[in-house]
């Protein structure tokens, strides 16, 4: 039975640890390989035993696809490929390929150096893992093998994020990864064509939310920065994700200009260096055929924003500084934080999620006394603000995407079924599709009816046409033929042609029936009577009287013979082939009714 099977891997239904197994057309694909950031033990990894218990993963999986560089989508990749073992291809977009190893290495450092974890992947493992990566471009159809092909679509969200279409024959699945349908300042919105997949798999973490507008989020950010600067405070904004930093810079610059503000804004050196690299990735990525819904400007030239020097941190008066790394776990941002933390006029704005163990995570949990190196205690008096800038699709966004792609079915992952019954009904009613919500570890099986193309021989078609009766567009027409399957090719030909091609001899099935007639005359006369009778009754058929005394109706043979014991009875032998079954039966019943009395 043709079917598509989907299993989200891992236990629990929290956010993070995106990893979905899809079986389609006999191929097995793993979508994303994320880490759950809330756990410190093996629970943070997906449960790969669902794939296979004792076989090699490489034998079982045809490919792995990574949607974007966030750790909850790629964090377990080196563990999976180097520690569990997988040597097949790993597909991702070019920017993802460039940024992933940086993030993985950062994460590894925090886990091993800060938290002292033992069983963690090494730097070398990250490198070895990335060697297995095959980078793809947007809208480029990539042949994984003869039957499996994949294609990436623009997803917005972060640099390099893509939605992937996986296709085998006429069956296809689209996996969205994380995406957003409302454009942001530098990345725009996700877009997909009306590809009509059998199944659309989408994250539903934010499916039951209605998002506050981007403008109000930006307003909130500006307000906070403005208030701090007005009271003479210093604002630290730790960033990693280049792109998010750019976006906030554009925002501040516009605001500073409009309000004629004088406080300096700095961009740390670490960021400036990465900026060029980022810029190149960004330009290629966003120039590929995507809908341009965002403002085009040079993201890296600012009037009010200057390069930072570590000496500036001690300057009096207000200022705003963007510094790396984003979770305050090391480097320049941590240095600056330590200098400014003691003053309540200052402010730190955390723009995203922080991994456990980092200073960022601690202050976001409300901690105000931090133990630093050398047992020094740092008292945090500065204002701590947590702002969420990442763009995800909410309920409205999901409906929009379903409307664009027009799938036959929809599958929501990472939601709690009880809390999404309404959304399920909404999707089912509006689009008339089935909506599935499997728990992690639960397999959803979708029956599909793939269309198999079959070539019909012209001769066969012509013969059907010759039967008379033009084809009716509304009614199915029964066609008899022989299906030849050869080299993934299907052909429907007439039986004769099939026999010829295959070099087989045709079997003949012949039926014979005996009809007893009361007739004392000689066989030849009986035969004559039969002939005249049939000739008059079966006007549309060819009835012939052969020289040897037998009568033929089309290809059916009728012979008259004397009954062995009763001279008054004649036996008619009626014989016909399988093809003439209908006529043969008809003739037999006709003859059984008897012959009209002879005239003379």
């Amino acid at each position, binding site marked *: 039975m043709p079917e598509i099977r989907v299993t989200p891997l891992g236990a629990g239904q929290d956010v993070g640890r995106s990893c979905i197994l899809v079986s389609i057309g006999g191929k097995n694909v793993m979508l994303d390989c994320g880490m759950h950031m809330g756990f410190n033990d093996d629970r943070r990894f997906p449960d790969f035993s669902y794939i296979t218990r004792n076989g090699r993963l490489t034998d079982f999986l045809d490919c792995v696809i990574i949607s974007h560089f966030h750790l909850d989508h790629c964090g377990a990749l080196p563990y999976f490929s180097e520690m569990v073992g997988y040597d097949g291809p790993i597909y991702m977009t070019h920017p993802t390929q460039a940024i992933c190893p940086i993030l993985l290495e950062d994460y590894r450092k925090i886990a091993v150096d800060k938290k002292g974890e033992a069983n963690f992947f090494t730097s070398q493992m990250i490198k070895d893992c990335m060697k297995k990566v095959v980078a793809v471009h947007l809208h480029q159809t990539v042949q994984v093998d003869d039957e499996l092909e994949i294609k990436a679509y623009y997803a917005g969200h972060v640099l390099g994020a893509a939605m992937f279409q996986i296709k085998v024959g006429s069956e296809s699945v689209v996996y969205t990864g994380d995406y957003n349908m409302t454009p942001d300042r530098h990345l725009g919105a996700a877009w997909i064509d009306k590809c009509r997949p059998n199944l659309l798999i989408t994250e539903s973490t*934010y499916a*039951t*939310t*209605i*998002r*506050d*507008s981007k*403008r*109000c*989020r*930006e*307003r*909130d950010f*500006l*307000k*906070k920065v*403005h208030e701090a600067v007005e009271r003479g405070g210093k604002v630290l904004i730790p960033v990693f994700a280049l792109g998010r930093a750019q976006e906030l810079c554009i925002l501040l610059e*516009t*605001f500073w200009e*409009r*309000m004629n503000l004088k406080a300096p804004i700095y961009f740390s050196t670490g960021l400036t260096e990465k900026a060029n690299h980022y810029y190149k990735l960004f330009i290629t990525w966003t120039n590929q055929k995507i809908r341009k819904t965002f403002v085009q400007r040079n993201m890296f030239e600012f009037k009010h924003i200057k390069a930072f020097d570590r000496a500036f941190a001690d300057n009096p008066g207000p200022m705003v500084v963007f510094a790396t790394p984003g979770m305050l776990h090391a480097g320049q941002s941590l240095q600056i934080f330590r200098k400014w933390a003691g003053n309540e006029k200052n402010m730190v704005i955390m723009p995203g999620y922080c991994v456990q163990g980092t200073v960022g995570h601690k202050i*976001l949990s*409300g901690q105000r006394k931090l133990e630093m190196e050398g047992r020094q205690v740092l008292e945090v008096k500065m*204002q*701590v*603000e*947590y*702002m*969420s800038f990442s763009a995800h699709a*909410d*309920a*409205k966004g999901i*409906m929009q995407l379903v409307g664009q792609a027009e799938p036959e079915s929809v599958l929501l992952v990472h939601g709690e079924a*009880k*809390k*999404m*019954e*309404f*959304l399920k*009904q*909404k999707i089912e*009613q509006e689009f008339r599709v089935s909506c599935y919500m499997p728990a992690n570890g639960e397999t959803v099986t979708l029956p599909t009816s793939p269309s198999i193309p079959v070539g019909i021989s012209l001769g066969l078609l012509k013969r059907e046409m010759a039967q008379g009766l033009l084809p009716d567009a509304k009614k199915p027409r029964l066609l008899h033929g022989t299906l030849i399957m050869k080299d993934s090719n299907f052909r429907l030909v007439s039986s004769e042609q099939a026999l010829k091609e295959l070099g087989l001899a045709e079997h003949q099935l012949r039926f014979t029936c005996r009809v007893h007639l009361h007739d004392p005359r000689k066989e030849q006369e009986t035969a004559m009577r039969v002939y005249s009778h049939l000739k008059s009754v079966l006007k549309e058929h060819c009835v012939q009287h052969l020289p040897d005394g037998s009568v033929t109706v089309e290809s059916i043979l009728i012979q008259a013979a004397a009954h062995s014991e009763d001279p008054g009875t004649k036996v008619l032998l009626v014989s016909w082939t399988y093809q003439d079954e209908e006529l043969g039966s008809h003739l037999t019943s006709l003859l059984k009714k008897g012959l009209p009395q002879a005239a003379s």
Partner: protein
Amino acid sequence: MESAEDWLVESLRLYQDFHAFDLSEATRVLEWIDDKGVCVAGYESLKKNEILHLLLPLRLSVKENQGLFPERDFKVRHGGFSDTSVFDLKHVLDTRLLVTSGLPGCHLHVWQVTEDSDVIQAVSTIAVQEEEGSLWPRVAVFSSMAPGVLHGARLRGLKVVDLETQKTTYSSGVGDSEELSSLQVLDADTFAFCCASGRLGLVDIRQKWAPSENAGPGPGPGAAARRWCAEVGGRRRGPGPSIASLGSDGQLCLLDPRDLCHPVSSGRCPVSAPSPAPELLRVTWAPGLDDCLAISGFDGTVQVYDATSWDGTGGQVEPVFTHRGHIFLEDNQTDTAPLVTTHTWHPHKPRTLLSAASDASLHVWDWVDHRAAC
């Protein structure tokens, strides 16, 4: 839009906090479910409408450490589908039941919100007096041991129906065909009504129909075309007017319940009158501020007034604040400007309001009172 950017910068000064949401369909109702969530519902006539129970972003509920709550989004806690349009929705206090009313106006619908599912289920319907055309019954709820639903489109059809037994426990029993504009339950035994003509009344349901009422605002230019709505406020302290009555020409009257015939104070609001949609007129008292009112239904704004500063002569009064967000943040660029369909005050944050408009926008805003600067 350049002006949207300007307005946003200006908004830094005007608002303490500001959230803007886009619902999938416009709503005319904003009904609080305890103080953490509101219900909204669609009012289109030819399709299925959604009823949603939304939870406010956490940061609007917490008192401390607001900065540590990054979530600014509404959460759809429950949702349901209604075949009819919803013009009014009331929560039955201390229960999980909602009552809705709309067109066609021959039934009220009762819904249930459950804990273990996020779907709002239809429970029952209450048949009401058949009304012709575009009239629909106003609804208010008597919350008690045995909740009753007060409803009616005209004075003559006013009834209280026991929610569980569906038996009529009170009937106005009058033949008056005056059209109702609003109904409001005041306590276990009293309710207030306001007719479209401006006629106000307070009714004690323990007695046969004998409301203390006025005859309606006197004749004046265009009096017949005016439409009124009213709200009784829970006065926080002291004597004074606690009933506000708003006319579609922009006139706002304040009345004392002891003497409905003579308004204590009145003023003319600077609005584009007459209102293009008088049925959407709404006047509300601020639960946390003395003598403060908000009005909407004339255009894309919500205006806040402080009645203590009025001289009461009926002349022009100025709002202390005007919310213009629905006009400036309008994304759709349609020809028709958005119209505010309803608004409501936050139960305990004194200057926070929610407002909804015809373009399906929903705003939560906390305005800054610049007069308070010393």
